[in-house]
């Protein structure tokens, strides 16, 4: 039951940043695709409405229910990932989609959130010494991480797999890990890089090479990054104006409504618009950290940290990628990029943050 005093605690900062970012996303998708595929922005709008409708109950119920069902949600999520791998629809070579009637969903998006839930639940029950997590205490969290990580990497979806990795590392570091484990495992990780290289697909290697040496792949991702920089740079201070961008709508940019939505936006709204979007993200993420710090129990603290890390890494990797600071990996921009499952996951995450925020003073 929702109580009056709970209503008084609604986190307007989270609601407004979430909503404004989602609307900016729909406007940018419209501008990027109204010429060739005008139905895309409408679909994104439907997803936003569906998301908003689902957010309401998620905000209202006490998050302790998430604590109780965390492992169930996690297990269901892993099963859908396996299902997608076996029966999934292949789009652009990766098996990511499951069709449910008239919509297709991408289970790997929801898996991010269920992974955070399960890891939060597990870590909240652990008695962590002052020195941090020991080796034995790391076994279960690592298993919780490795299962979805491998399933997603198998699809193959390098971007999503990376997100799992960064969120996992962030949460473990916040909980603290014994120094004598941290140092060797970081060293082992670095040593693994050449081995991991062999598991990458040819195109994934090409992207990494072209990041280190942009002239190495001038016909592929090197060209994409150049066009992305041209789009952003040509926006200058005030931008070319809504729907006036040419890089995106003229198809110089690949995936201009998904991974490369930010250049489309920055071309039309310039530095003035770009800084506003970055500021909105900054508010959202620092607010997320604030919610975590104010959390009243370990589960909610870890959950808020995990969700904030999810927002942060998505945003930072995507923005870094389109501005030529990071290699091209398929990581979309939260709330802005086209994609129903992704938007829904981001909205759900936001709703959980609000839920925690509302209850921080209630015992």
């Amino acid at each position: 039951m929702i109580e009056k005093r709970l209503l008084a605690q609604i986190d307007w900062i989270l609601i407004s940043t979430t909503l404004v970012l989602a609307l900016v996303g729909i406007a940018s998708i419209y501008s990027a695709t109204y010429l060739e595929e005008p139905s895309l922005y409408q679909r994104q709008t439907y997803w936003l409405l569906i998301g908003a409708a689902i957010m309401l109950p998620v905000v209202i119920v006490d998050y302790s229910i998430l604590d109780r069902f965390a492992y169930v949600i996690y297990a269901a999520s892993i099963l859908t990932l396996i299902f997608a791998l076996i029966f999934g629809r292949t789009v652009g070579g990766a098996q990511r989609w499951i069709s449910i009637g008239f919509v297709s969903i991408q289970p790997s998006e929801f898996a991010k959130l269920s992974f955070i839930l399960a890891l939060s639940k597990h870590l909240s029950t652990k008695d962590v010494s002052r020195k941090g997590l020991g080796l034995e205490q790391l076994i279960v969290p690592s298993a919780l991480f490795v299962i979805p990580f491998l399933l997603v990497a198998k699809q193959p979806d390098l971007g999503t797999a990376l997100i799992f990795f960064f969120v996992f590392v962030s949460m473990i570091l916040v909980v603290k890990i014994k120094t004598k484990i941290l140092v060797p495992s970081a060293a082992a990780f670095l040593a693994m890089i050449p081995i991991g290289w062999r598991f990458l697909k040819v195109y994934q290697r090409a992207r990494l090479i072209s990041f280190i040496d942009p002239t190495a792949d001038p016909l592929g991702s090197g060209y994409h990054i150049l066009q992305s920089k041209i789009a952003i740079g040509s926006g200058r201070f005030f931008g070319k104006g809504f729907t006036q961008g040419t890089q995106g709508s003229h198809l110089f940019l690949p995936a201009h409504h998904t991974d490369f939505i930010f250049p489309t936006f920055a071309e039309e709204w310039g530095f003035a618009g770009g800084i506003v979007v970055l500021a909105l993200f900054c508010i959202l993420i620092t607010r997320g950290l604030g919610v975590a710090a104010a959390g009243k129990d370990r589960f909610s603290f870890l959950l808020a940290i995990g969700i904030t890390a999810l927002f942060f890494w998505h945003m930072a990797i995507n923005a870094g990628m389109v501005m030529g600071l990071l290699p091209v990996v398929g990581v979309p921009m939260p709330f802005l990029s086209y994609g129903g499952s992704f938007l829904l996951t981001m909205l759900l995450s936001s709703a959980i943050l609000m839920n925690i925020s509302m209850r921080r003073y209630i015992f």
Partner: protein
Amino acid sequence: MKEYFLDKEPKEFKSRVFFALWVVLFAFSVLVIRLWYLQIIRGSHFSELSRTNSIRLIKAQAPRGIIYDRNGGILAENRPGFDLSIIPEDVQDWEKTKKFLTRLAGIDEKTIEERLRKARGRPPYRPVKLKEDLTWEEMVRVAAYKFELPGVDIDVGQKRIYAYNEATTHLMGYLGEISEREYSEFRTEEENPYSPGDVIGKAGAELAFEDELMGINGGKQIEVDALGRLVSVIKNINPYPGNNVHLTIDLQAQIAAWEAMEGRAGAVVAMDPQTGEVLAMVSTPSYNPNDLIDGVSEEEWTAIVQNPMKVLTNRVIQGLYPPASTFKVITAAAALEEGVIDPSTKIYAGPSFKYGNHEYRDWKEEGHGTIDVHRAIVESADTFFYQVGLKVGLERLARYSTLFGFGQKTGIAFTNEKNGLVPTAEWKKRVYGAPWFEGETVSVSVGQGFMLTTPLQLLNAYSAIANGGTLYVPQLVGSVDAPEGVAIRKFTPVEKRRIDISGKTLAVLKDALRGVVAEDGGTARFLNSYGLDIAGKTGTAQVMRMRERIKNVNSIPYKFRDHGWFVGYAPSDDPKIAVVVLVEHGGFGASSAAPVALKVMQAYLEKKPEITPQDGSSGPVAAEKGPPAAGKNDGDGGGDL
């Protein structure tokens, strides 16, 4: 809620949140500085690049790999050709451009509109192909006016050319522009190695070995001025040609097969029975694959697709026919192995066999008398196998058919191979909802009724008999070379399975197959006079039940005439080549199919002088007409119901 959190409040972690805050703020500062750098400091530079759309990618198609026969004869290669394309972004005056293109290169406005319409949704700086393979004159005329026609471009493309025209059509397949479906689904890699407009193998070897043949496309990143003229090449990556594929095909056998099939519909396929290497593959009627290279018009394509003779079908792997009398060998194998008969069992094989209230006729009016299995195969005695087949029973017939590879794909590298059909009682129940009648087993025992095979399946089964019981996966490629000529892959025979059958039974079958050619009363007796030591079996597949025995094939309308089969190998004691021939509506197998098989065996075993490629559009030289003097017209008739 559990208890422990009360004394384990998250306070212990909170200092780390401040650290996280600093990380976040640092990251945002970097992003803001980068945004500032791109939009403010470098803004005018990027603005200029954006305004002129001046950085472009020009694709360079990789030359396709060359296809050779087993002796290094070229089957498919490339020649240069000129293509005219247009970059919509750069066109200044559409009216003028269209008028000029009509006058200079004979491209009418309708074609231009249609090509542009098809390319909608592609970036406007991407060239759209308007006409392929310009003549020299057209090319020179357009080049002379090029500066008045910004956006019009001529590039040198690679054109595929098939040296033997129709003779290798179904073997080579053909090329075409990549379809939307192929573009999105053909590949499993996320970064598609193709781009719209690329040429891709659509059938035959071109499709089966696409991965080897395609090569790696290159391209240039160039800077152009406002009129689309090249200012500078920023980056150039040369295309890397595709690998060269050496097929196992023997050109002489291939050409002999094609010439012998002149004017007839059907299929010929030859194989080295010791390895499963395919030596020749011909399906007729055919079409000239060179005509499809530059993209045919919609009407021409429709004419090919809707041709009542189904010219696109590769009958070798997609044609389904009753194996007819060629199947008697399998019935014999089942009967011998299961102990239903032994080599000396003699059965009365009269003019007809009564079963239930049906009378099943033999092809031979006067019957065969009392004979053993050897003579029954030699004379192709229907009434002998009706009785034996019934005793073996449907279930065991099906089991042995499956063992010999019927009813399943052979596994050849070509796509869309048909399965064929080995009927069983369950199958009939499932498909027709009706029970199996014993009388139908009578038909199956002579390869009629529901039984269906592709020519390649039948050949594979006979190859297994010829080589002593090994079923191979038919193989088409011997080796693959890198463009520099170094062999990078060699292929060895792939065994599908050992057929679990005794050497004694195999010896009986092989003796009998030799007898078909070598003994008096054998149905392919005339082949013996060519001295190749041929062994084999004729067959005549019923298309329609005939009430009367009709000896004069020409008196029956074409579509009701029987299909003629011959399948065999030579030399019989050490087989080097196995051949199957199917002539659709050819009448008796002995007179229609066997002569074709003979030609192919002769071409392969008695190497004739080199064959030179035919030039240009004329088809291969017609074969000498008519079958070699066949003694008599007595094929076998199959069981008449």
